[in-house]
Structures are given as structure tokens and as C-alpha cells.
């Protein structure tokens, strides 16, 4: 196998698995093979996908962010309260939330980089803060009655009679394209991988390590806020319990996509494939109706394990080579 091909093996494996899953589900379940299903793969998982794109950037740089689920919940109830109880316009509420998210992410990034604290612990604290803050605002969900919301959810891109992409899918697409461009076509994106591979080398090469790391956490938190906004659009209400456990799903998606959890290696395309794999499993279970939801956990766990072992085997054989 040529070295170039070997490097992309995890990515190819993910693509293969996605195809295998999709085809088997299509054969097993009537109606799976429809344009609508494919569109739904994106639309239903839009907020998870947006979160995964952000998480990819953080993991590229060798970090991890456990707070994203809580940030989604916080954004949800925060904007709903601003709109319903304080008369904010949805756009203003959204901008405020994004600003808060940026501050939050930058804060975590600073604690992690400047004070040299483990990302795991700091983002854990962030998760506690955001989730607690969400429940502090309100312990129950708040419905959003602003007319703009109703109008927005109807926006969709009509390609043909059967293929209609709702707004949520479009936002996911835009975020993904943005993430891809940043990761592979900007200095910041390449610096993320450099920092993730070896922070010390990156420093000596003159790269802006601090700015890169803090930037990754800031962008990730902002994307989590965006995901929260999208989720609120989807459900039409603000809910502080939204997103519990979501960070683990996001991490699973990134790893299944072939990105190394320790950083330095990965491809944004992998995250897209990871989203598709995850979505297919979920859709298959829904379609089936017989399988119970906890099987998602078990199957995803098994897949994750398989990928980790594959990554390890590849990394080990690469090390033996040099």
C-alpha cells in the first residue's frame, strides 16, 4: 500500500463503513433509499454536526471540550428568555449569545493555555458552569412565540420536487464548508494541527501557539452557540436540558471520522463522514422501530472502539517504519 494511501486509511475506512451501513439499512428497511432520508440525515443531525465541526478544530489542536452540550442548553434557554421575557429581537438575542459564547470559549482557552491546566478538567468546569447557568435562568422549557421563528423554519432550498433542503441542513452545510476551508486552507487551520502534534516544536518554529489554542476554543464555543440556536429553531422552544451528553456524541463523530484524539492528525471530511455514519445508525433504529434506543449507545461504542484500534495499529506500523 502506498504511503499516501496508508495515511488516508482511517478516512477510507469510515467512508466504507458509511456506505456499508447505508446500503444494508436501505436493503432492510422500506423507504430508506429515498432522497428524503438523505436530506434528513443532514437536517435532523444539524446541531450535532455543527458541534462536531467545532470539536474537530479543538481536537486537531490536541485539546478536548466537554462543555459543548451544556453550552447548547444554555444558549437555548438564554435566547428563549431574552426573546420571550425581555422582548429582544431574535437576531439581537442570537448575537448576544454568540458574544457570550466567544467570551466563554476564550476564557476556557486562556485557563488551559496560560495557566497550563488540563483541558479535560477546565472544560468539565465549563460544562458545570453552563449547565448550572442554564437551569438558573429557568428550570423548565420556554416556548418561543416570536413570529420570525415560524417564518425562518419554513425557509428551504428547493432543488427539485422531492429534494428540499431545510434551513438547518443549509446551515450545517455552510458551517461544514467553512470548517473545511479553515482547516485546510488557512494558516490558522494548519497551525492547529502543528500545535496538536507537538506544541513545543510549534513554539520553536515561531507559530502563535497561544493564539491558536485560545482561538480553537473560542470558535468551538461559538459554534456550540450556533448549534444551540439551530436546535432552538428546530424545537421552537428554549430548553435548559438540551444537549445533555451531546459532547460525547460529538467526540465519537470526530474520532470515527479518523481524527486522532491526541491531535495533529485528521481531516474535516472525516467529520462529515462521521456525521453520516452516526445519522445512519440513528435513522436505521428509528426506521426499524423494534430496536431500542440503547442499542445506539452500544453500536456507537463498538464502532468507536474499532476505529481507535485501527488508528493505533496504523500509527504503530508507521512508527516502526521510520
Amino acid at each position, binding site marked *: 500500500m502506498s504511503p499516501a494511501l496508508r495515511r488516508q486509511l482511517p478516512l477510507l475506512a469510515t467512508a466504507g463503513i458509511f456506505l456499508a451501513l447505508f446500503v444494508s439499512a436501505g436493503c432492510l428497511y422500506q423507504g430508506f433509499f429515498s432522497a428524503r432520508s438523505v436530506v434528513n440525515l443532514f437536517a435532523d443531525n444539524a446541531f450535532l454536526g455543527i458541534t462536531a465541526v467545532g470539536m474537530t478544530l479543538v481536537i486537531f489542536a490536541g485539546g478536548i471540550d466537554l462543555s459543548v452540550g451544556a453550552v447548547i442548553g444554555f444558549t437555548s434557554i438564554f435566547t428563549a428568555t431574552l426573546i420571550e421575557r425581555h422582548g429582544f429581537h431574535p437576531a439581537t438575542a442570537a448575537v448576544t449569545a454568540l458574544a457570550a459564547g466567544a467570551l466563554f470559549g476564550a476564557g476556557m482557552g486562556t*485557563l488551559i493555555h496560560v495557566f497550563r491546566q488540563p483541558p479535560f478538567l477546565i472544560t*468539565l468546569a465549563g460544562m458545570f*458552569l453552563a449547565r448550572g447557568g442554564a437551569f438558573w435562568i429557568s428550570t423548565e422549557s420556554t416556548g418561543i412565540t416570536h413570529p420570525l421563528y415560524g417564518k425562518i423554519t419554513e425557509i428551504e432550498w428547493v432543488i427539485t420536487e422531492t429534494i428540499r433542503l431545510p434551513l438547518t441542513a443549509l446551515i450545517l452545510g455552510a458551517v461544514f464548508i467553512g470548517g473545511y476551508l479553515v482547516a485546510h486552507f488557512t494558516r490558522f487551520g494548519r497551525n492547529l494541527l502543528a500545535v496538536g502534534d507537538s506544541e513545543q516544536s510549534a513554539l520553536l518554529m515561531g507559530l502563535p501557539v497561544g493564539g491558536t489554542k485560545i482561538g480553537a476554543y473560542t470558535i468551538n464555543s461559538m459554534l456550540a452557540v450556533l448549534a444551540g440556536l439551530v436546535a432552538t429553531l428546530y424545537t421552537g422552544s428554549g430548553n435548559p436540558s438540551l444537549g445533555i451528553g451531546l459532547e460525547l456524541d460529538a467526540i465519537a463523530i470526530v474520532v470515527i471520522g479518523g481524527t486522532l484524539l491526541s491531535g495533529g492528525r485528521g481531516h474535516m471530511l472525516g467529520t462529515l463522514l462521521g456525521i453520516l455514519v452516526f445519522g445512519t445508525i440513528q435513522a436505521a433504529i428509528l426506521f426499524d422501530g423494534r430496536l431500542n434506543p440503547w442499542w445506539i*449507545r*452500544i453500536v*456507537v461504542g463498538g464502532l468507536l472502539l474499532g476505529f481507535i484500534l485501527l488508528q493505533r495499529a496504523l500509527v504503530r506500523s508507521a512508527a516502526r517504519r521510520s
Partner: protein
Amino acid sequence: MSKPVRHSRSPLLWPLIGLAFLILLNVAMDLRAGEWKFLKITMLDGHLYGLPVDILNQGSRGMILALGMTLIIATGGVDLAVGSLMAVAGSVAAVLLTKQGFSWPVAVTVALAVTTLGGAVSGGLVAQLGVQPIVATLIAMVVGRGVAQLVTSGDVVIIKNAGFEFLGNGFVFGVPFSVILVMVLYFAAHSFLRKTAAGLFIEAVGDNETASRFAGLAAVRLKTFVYVFGGLCAGIAGLLATSNIRAADPYRAGLNMELDAIFAVVVGGTALTGGRFWLMGSLVGALLLQTLTTTLYNLGVAPAVATVPKAVLIIAVCLMQSDKTRNWLRGLFPRRSA
């Protein structure tokens, strides 16, 4: 083996200070309210009652979890699956007791065996296959939660069994059984670790695994062992929790408790990177967390919101452990003698 001599201030200092602070806060609140609520301990039916007793009782699960987590973190690892394993223990015991009609000793033994095995699987992934601990136990956590739900077919199972209920609600010589269990477990672990060379080995593996292996340490066996022990602790904690509420809830049992356990260990002075560990410190850390939760509850703070002060506490602890803050503080208060 002799006790390791510390060359710096005892790490127990900070969590004890925190605990003292919280106790004083509660006492102050009582003084304002004009009646002793916090420190009141009474004897009723030969049982001790009172808030401190409640704290110890409720906190016993966290303390047991923290004991197991301490050793895992000391080897440089972490176990995110212990919360899910708690749920598995509860589910297994509940199903055996109610749907299969087994006696409670059997149910307890099988449940503990299952979680110990679960710990062994995590340990195998980490120690033998060399998977990163966060990743391996993340997978175990996800799968474990699924298994807990699978075992009860998604139901919350009510348990009506006097023997089993004693575990989480019974009293021995007036003291809650769970508290006794914590003390027994602590003393057993402490003696084993310090009277044999196991404590030294665990600290060595966490400090420099490669050097330990080259010096002839069976690192793989040791690392697997700490995860097995962690699984056992999770099982015990899970049974206590399930017994306490007399029901197995596969969705909520043990939720986020691994994070609390990790936090307790870090507050107790064991570094997240591994090496020297302090079991007593982790116990105090877990107690501190429980006291905080109870204090906030008494202050009328909803439990869901109580995570905010928890977060502030974690950040404060991290900052204090950071060299940068220490240097900065040292700059503010120059010591007269070096």
C-alpha cells in the same frame, strides 16, 4: 513500607480548609436563624440523625468512587465509566431480585462480579491494548449506559427486599451502614497499599511508566488491577445508591458521578498526571463536594444550579495547583525565609 515523606505543605490542607469553611458557613447561618440545624445530631431509635449524618450517608457513594478513582488517576489514567458501572450494578441486582427471585446475597455478588469484570475490560483496553484511558473509558461509559438500560429493558425497577434495602438505609450501632462500609474499604485499601509495595508501584507507574517497566515492574498487571478495583468500587457505590432509593434507574443512576469522583481526587491532592496519591485526600474531597451540595440545597439552590459553585470550585482548585498562580502569589507575598 514507610510513609512517603512530603517535602511540601500537606496537600490535605486545602480540602480541609474548604470543608472547615463550609461548616463554619452553615453554623453562621444557623446562628442567624436562631436555631441549631446544621450541627444538631440526635439519637432516635438507636440511630444517629442529623445533617452531618446525612452528608456522610449521601456522600458515601462519592467517597467509595473516589477511592477507586484515586488509584486509577495515580497510574496516570482516568475512568469515565464508573458512573455507568454504578447503573449496571443497580440494574443487574434489581433484575435478579425482582424478576428472577434470587436472594439478595446472590444478587449483590453477581452485580459486583459484573462491574468488576467491566473494570477489567477497561483495564485490558488501557493496559494491554494501550488505548488512551480517556478514549477507552469513554467507550465503556457509552456502552455501559446502554447495557444498564438493556438489562432492565429500559424500565425503572422498584425493589422490595429487606436485606438489600439495608445496604443503603440501615444502621449499625447507630451509624449508617454505608459510612461503615466507607471506613472499612478505606482502611483495607490503605493497609494493603502501604503494607505491601503496591502503593510504591502505583506511584512509580504514574510517575514514569517507561522507567518502571525497564526496572522490571509488571506494569500491565498493575494498571489492569487499578481498573478492576475501580470497577469493584463502582459496583459497591452503585448498589448503595440503588438500595438508598429502593429502585434501579438505568437512566439517572450514577449520572456525572465519575466527574465528581475525578474532581474529589484532584481536590484531594493527587495530580491528574499521576504519581503520588492520597486516599484520605480524596475522601475529604468527596466529603467537601457533598457538603457543598447539601449546603446549597439548604440555601434553597436547586440541585441543577448547584453545578455552578462546583465549577467555580474546580477552577479555583486548578488555579491554586497551577505553578503560574503560585509564582504570582509568591510575588505578592514575598516570604522572608527561603
